[in-house]
């Protein structure tokens, strides 16, 4: 099972945190501090796994971002690596060649996409197309709500004129 997902920039800034196991806010910041210093200091040719507090942290660097997933000791590390890649590809398709700035300004979308791929620390959907379709459908709902709100407000505006 996955315990948490972290996105850390090369400068150590947190871009996304998703917790599937209970960590108090204090523990969370401690975990982030510990792991970012450990992972950011690793050389480029080393393996992508770090053993940490009896767990395994699988990380991969894409451009300026480190994607880290902490999973159980006996989980398949190579699969976890594939999950990271799967997530990155999905983001890439959604944003169209994703970059760190996309994830900063649309951090909530990165969360929504992650929530369609992982749930309760397990793999939820293996098809990128399905994931993106679900995201698109929910965004349509948002648009519809917005339009409704604006038409409502214009009706109100007209009525109060």
């Amino acid at each position: 099972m996955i315990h948490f997902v972290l996105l850390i920039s090369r400068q150590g800034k947190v871009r996304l945190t998703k917790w599937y196991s209970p960590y108090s806010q204090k523990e969370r910041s401690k975990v982030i501090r510990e792991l970012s210093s450990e992972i950011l200091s690793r050389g480029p040719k080393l393996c992508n796994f770090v053993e940490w507090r009896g767990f395994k942290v699988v990380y991969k660097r894409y451009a300026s971002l480190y994607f880290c997933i902490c999973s159980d000791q006996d989980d398949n590390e190579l699969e976890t690596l594939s999950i990271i890649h799967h997530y990155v590809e999905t983001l890439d398709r959604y944003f169209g060649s994703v970059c760190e700035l996309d994830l900063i300004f649309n951090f909530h979308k990165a969360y929504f996409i992650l929530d369609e791929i992982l749930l309760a620390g397990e793999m939820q959907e293996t098809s990128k197309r399905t994931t993106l379709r679900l995201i698109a459908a929910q965004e349509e709902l948002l648009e519809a709500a917005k339009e409704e709100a604006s038409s409502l407000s214009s009706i109100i505006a007209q009525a109060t004129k």
Partner: protein
Amino acid sequence: MNPFSSGTRLRDMIRAIRASKTAAEERAVVRKECAAIRAAINENDQDYRHRNLAKLMFIHMLGYPTHFGQMECLKLIASPGFPEKRIGYLGLMLLLDERQEVLMLVTNSLKQDLNHTNQYIVGLALCALGNICSAEMARDLAPEVERLLQFRDPNIRKKAALCSIRIIKKVPDLAENFINSATALLREKHHGVLITGVQLCTDLCKISPEALEHVRKKCTDVLVRTLRDLANSPYSPEYDIAGITDPFLHIRLLKLLRVLGEGDADASDSMNDILAQVATKTESNKVAGNAILYECVQTIMSIEDNGGLRVLAINSLGRFLSNRDNNIRYVALNMLMKAVTADGQAVQRHRATILECVKDSDASIRKRALELVYVLVNETNVKPLAKELIDYLEVSENDFRGDLTAKICSIVSKFSPEKIWYIDQMLKVLSEAGNYVKDEVWHALIVVITNATELHGYTVRALYRAFQTSAEQESLVRVTVWCIGEYGDLLVNNVGMLDIEDPITVTESDAVDVLEIAIKRHESDLTTKAMALVALLKFSSRFPSCSERIKEIIVQFKGNLMLELQQRAIEFNSILAKHQNIRSTLVERMPVLDEATFIGRKAGSLPGAASTTTMPSVGIPNGEAKPAAPLIDLLDLSSDDAPAPSSSGGDLLHDLLGVDLSPAPQQSGAGQPSKSGTDVLLDLLSVGSPAQSSSSTVDILSSNTNGKSPVSPLDDISSLSLSSRANSNAGAAPMMDLLDGFGPSPSKENNGPVYPSITAYESSSLRLTFSFSKQPGNPETTNIQATFTNLSSTVYTDFVFQAAVPKFLQLHLDPASSNTLPAAGNGSVTQSLKVTNSQHGKKNLVMRIRIAYKLNGKDTLEEGQINNFPREL
């Protein structure tokens, strides 16, 4: 409307934060935003609530406190619209965790949303529930989730399945409710539902044996078929990764098959074919393919034995191991670790490669490889493996050395074929990485050294050599210091040379050099310095020629700021100065340490295992069993600042001393600070001086055995809490009086009546005092401690004391502590007498004495009669 919140959009705030050049600027922006958000919260602002929460989440990620936004999440979740709910649930998962009580308030909203007509809202609720639900929520909402497992839309079914995993993990009792609906999911065609169904079944099987039985019986074939179809499926763009259709599903299926096959031959049998197919046909040039292979190998190794498959699996691991990709090698090491128990021989074949991995530049790989090597070591290969590891120790990185050293020490001590090899290897480790060696390891080494009688000379010479090059390694210094203290004579005289040794010339002063370096070394800690002091004392008695120099060194420590060192220095100095005659016996060589006891105590706390294991103290022979040993123990005492009886390190230390410290009393030396030093010294003397009859020793011991005090004198000394010594063993007290010319003994011996000491004889040149004690239950016998003090200014030599008694008395004289009586009361000679009065109660003791000595070479004789014995003797 709030004047602040209308102003900035989320995007603008992020821009402002990113534009901040300093941390202070960023804090200012965040503070301003937080103030605006708080204001909006207070005004119960509806329009921008979700924007504010989004801002809060961003601020939260930067590490600022955002607890004030928690209630906003609940309000957003409770609002009817999808956009509000979506951001509300996101905030809930980010800002809260399952342990917060606020979460309980959301249960009702969740319940409503799980029954919502909009499937996306149902999806949001399931997602939140799956990620943060607590046990209470799991209980409350399990029926809803169960129902949603049959929802028409597959995207809800898959979410419900994962939610169920969370629920049964939180509340395992609920597992059986999910068995039927979970197995139904295994027949689905939709990959999302299928993969989540497989995961749910895997977790169910782990939690409930009942579910395992059910799934094994009903679904094994279905799963095997699904896996076969998947493995043989043609290219499908939607699920394809590197030419493989849905590797994630592959892996999850293999994982579930592993659970089903474990411990069940039939199920294992039915999956053999497909496992063989996956193991041979899967492409292994991409991560995804290797992930499947890895999982497949794991399954093959776990299910019931099938020889052919195992060979296949181990071979693929061998391929993994020779892969150039670090990730693959790491995984292979991991897997070989699991394979060792199943097929140790096969893994041994890869030993050379694994050993190479120990030297890898990657810490994760090194760690795995080291652990693997550790389990691969056995009696036959320990020599080459240990050599490789020790060679590597020289070049290894510092942060790896601790682990490596612990493992090497453990291997070496576990499998060493002979003592000399063990000692050699340990010396190498100590010279390379002595600073990383744990205390119990060098304690163990010392135990082995003392037991290897024929190697004492060899060891001390080897240590001496090692010290010349590696004096910066603390543990090496300690062992060297200890051995020179014990076996210094073997070092200097080249005793017991082995054929393999190079001859070496070490003078006495070279040996003292080592001790001096050790004690004066800046980095030496208290223990090392204390050990060096003891070694100096011991060495001085073996080589009187160095006495002066050693005395000088010891004197320098008399003013040391560390109480421990100061005290030792003062005590040792007085041994050197005043008690020449008993010194050699006082600092005799340590008796051989009891290896069996030590090993017994150590068991389970080898460096490889958790070193926190605390073994109960075993009753070990202390003073009572071998009265000679403890004295020497005392001097070999290495002092930990705070001996913690519960930690294994401490235990071992105590073993070394042959003393059980665990009931060490908490006494403070503050009571009699001025006397305490001498007290101990006197105790030392009274126990050890051979001139005394056993009586005084017996007294000490009997006072222990009688339970007068729960504390053995050794404990006292060892724990260096020195006050109250006089009370805790009365036997020693008279000695103190006599030596220091104190008044009558204050001892509170309640074993029998207390008798005042008397001055039995006094002339212008000599004083003789007697102190008395009786063994309980034997009133006829009196033990007398005679103490002679020289009142003149000249040393008396060839000192002899004789006594005669009437027929109704029986007299037994023990040898005197010395035949030289220093001048001017500057020391004394003691002698014990035992008088048995056959007419006890009727007649008093009476004694005639004659004292002969040489004064400036001239024979002198003094005679006298003693009539002033206490009446009741």
